């Protein structure tokens, strides 16, 4: 009887070791749930069709990018609208290294992360003096400047045409050139990013990030080196975003400036807002929501006869409405909605 309760609920589960107390998934139910998710993700990769897998890949890549952005915006409270540019830095670095220098993908991917981390660190320096709205504008400047370089630094970036003919990643005889093969690569990347982020916020640095977000003056009073950790947050976030950019480059096999403009930054901000600021899982929900919303809309628009609406305009409008709607109705995003649902069933059938 008591073990049946412990299986389902947090109360009644008594941790006897520090390891058990620190576990990311402290209850057996949570562990079972994550096992089901992993199994479902693997089964999806094995069974789904090409179209579904290509959507899943887009969602997965966006999820990694959104996680990176969430580290900065959701956990450290430094608002950045340079996400598109940072994705671009990662994508261009990886594309340049693999096409022009012939470096294998497995080296180019971390290199893309490191280069983006360096660029992010540099553009994070203004955060020493700038806060809130003024910092938003400084990151907007970063976006504009980096975008300008993408278009005008032709020998490196290929100008407005971009770089094409990017090779698909290969591991020995295994080439990730189909949506299905790439899906498992994306899945691994998402898993790595999720694990990394979930653990980051249990570490000293992660706690410092959260302290800075909640009240930076107070954080510095209790001994957090605010500037150092702000730059660290910019670099960690940019590293993940850069890796996402590289993943995108090797998935699309082409990079061009219009894939990394301000609209992309805003799209990613929409993901972290709708998913849930300052939650790891929210980044995934938000990425899925933003990527699936236009597809769902297009499907609906196709199936309703006699609709003469411009679908692209409809998608745009829906994106705007979704952002406004979530902010007004559920500012803490899908992650909060999901937690509420879980909380309801955690006590069920009892009142409390």
């Amino acid at each position, binding site marked *: 009887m008591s073990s049946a309760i412990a299986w389902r609920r947090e109360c009644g589960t008594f941790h006897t070791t520090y390891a058990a107390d620190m576990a990311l998934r402290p209850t057996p139910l949570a562990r079972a749930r994550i096992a089901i998710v992993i199994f479902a993700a693997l089964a999806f990769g094995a069974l789904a069709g090409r179209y579904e897998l290509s959507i899943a890949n887009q969602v997965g890549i966006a999820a990694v990018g959104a996680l990176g952005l969430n580290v900065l915006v959701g956990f450290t409270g430094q*608002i950045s609208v340079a996400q598109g540019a940072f994705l671009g830095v990662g994508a261009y670095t990886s594309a340049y290294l693999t096409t022009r220098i012939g470096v294998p993908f497995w080296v180019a991917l971390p290199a893309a992360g490191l280069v983006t981390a360096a660029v992010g660190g540099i553009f994070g320096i203004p955060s020493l003096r700038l806060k809130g709205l003024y910092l938003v504008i400084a990151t907007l400047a970063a976006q504009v400047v980096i975008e300008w370089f993408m278009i*005008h630094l032709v020998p490196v970036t290929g100008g407005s045409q971009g770089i094409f003919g990017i090779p698909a990643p290969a591991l020995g005889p295994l080439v990730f050139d189909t949506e299905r093969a790439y899906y498992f690569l994306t899945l691994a990347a998402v898993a790595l990013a999720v694990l990394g982020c979930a653990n980051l916020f249990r570490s000293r640095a992660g706690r410092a990030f959260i302290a800075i977000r909640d009240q930076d003056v107070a954080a510095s009073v209790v001994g957090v080196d605010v500037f150092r950790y702000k730059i660290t947050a910019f670099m960690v976030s940019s590293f993940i975003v850069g890796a996402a950019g590289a993943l995108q480059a090797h998935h699309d096999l082409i990079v061009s400036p219009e894939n990394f403009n301000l609209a992309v930054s805003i799209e990613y901000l*929409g993901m972290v*807002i709708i998913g849930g600021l300052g939650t790891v899982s929210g980044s995934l929900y938000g990425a899925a929501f933003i990527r699936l919303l236009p597809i769902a809309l297009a499907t609906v628009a196709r199936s309703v006869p006699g609709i003469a609406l411009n679908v692209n305009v409809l998608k*745009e409008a829906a994106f705007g409405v979704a*952002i406004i709607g979530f*902010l007004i109705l559920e*500012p803490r995003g899908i992650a909060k909605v999901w937690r509420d649902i879980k909380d309801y069933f955690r006590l069920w059938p009892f009142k409390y």
Partner: protein
Amino acid sequence: MSPELTLVLQLLIGGVAIGGVYALIALGFVLIYKATDVLNLAQGEMLLLGAYVSYGLIAQIGLPVPVAFLITLAFSIVLGITIERVALRPLIGEPAISVIMVTIGLAILLRSIVIGIWGTEYRVYPDVLPKESAQIGPLSVSLEFLWSFGIAMALVALFALAFRYTRVGIAMRAVADDQQAALSMGINVRFVFATSWVIAAIVSSIGGILLASIQGTGILLATLGLKALPVAIVGGLDSIIGAAAGGVIVGVLETLSAGYLDVPLGGGVRDVAPFVFLVLILLVKPYGLFGKERIERV
């Protein structure tokens, strides 16, 4: 005058003239920020909507210009009130990121409304301002630039004075300074919020009409809202005089950098230069040239 000097003066005049319109858009940012602490990133789209509504009334329905102008203003008032009521009021007290994102959401929504109604193609705006250009010595100045500069500066001056001397202006300043204190002094904070949004909508509609008559009506007008951001920030987000000064500074900077740096650097410098300048200014003066420094308490 040497040709070199003529070129510099010509660029300067062009920069100052376009800077006037930037100042007008920046005024919208500043008014809202001052009274409500919101950075309204939908400013460009409000401008776009104003330009298109007036275009529709003049060119498509065929109303005379003054009537169309008045209807556009009435529309702006309704727009301002609606935005404040529906989107901003529920977010009072939420973190900055939420408020910024809601204005971004608004921007996307307004833009898609414009595209949905008018499409994306470029349209020639009916002549509202005189098209000729005046000759001052060897320099030629387009009259529509002069007019728009004059109108913009008159509006900036008007609002600076209104902020300083009228009852509503003083109430807005009080709200900006301390909302709770203002509330306890019997100031209607909601009314102040609504008023500042209405004024911002009106100002951006006028800016939209001026810009549309200079450049024609197109979706790209909205990006000018983005351009006015460095203007507002360089001057300091809470300074009306700063908006005017920032407008002229950024306008001149743009034309000068376009005139001198575009060829050696390969084009597009015009759009980047204000932002680079902006970051440099911010690193030295984090609250802009004329902005008020905030003292933080834990």
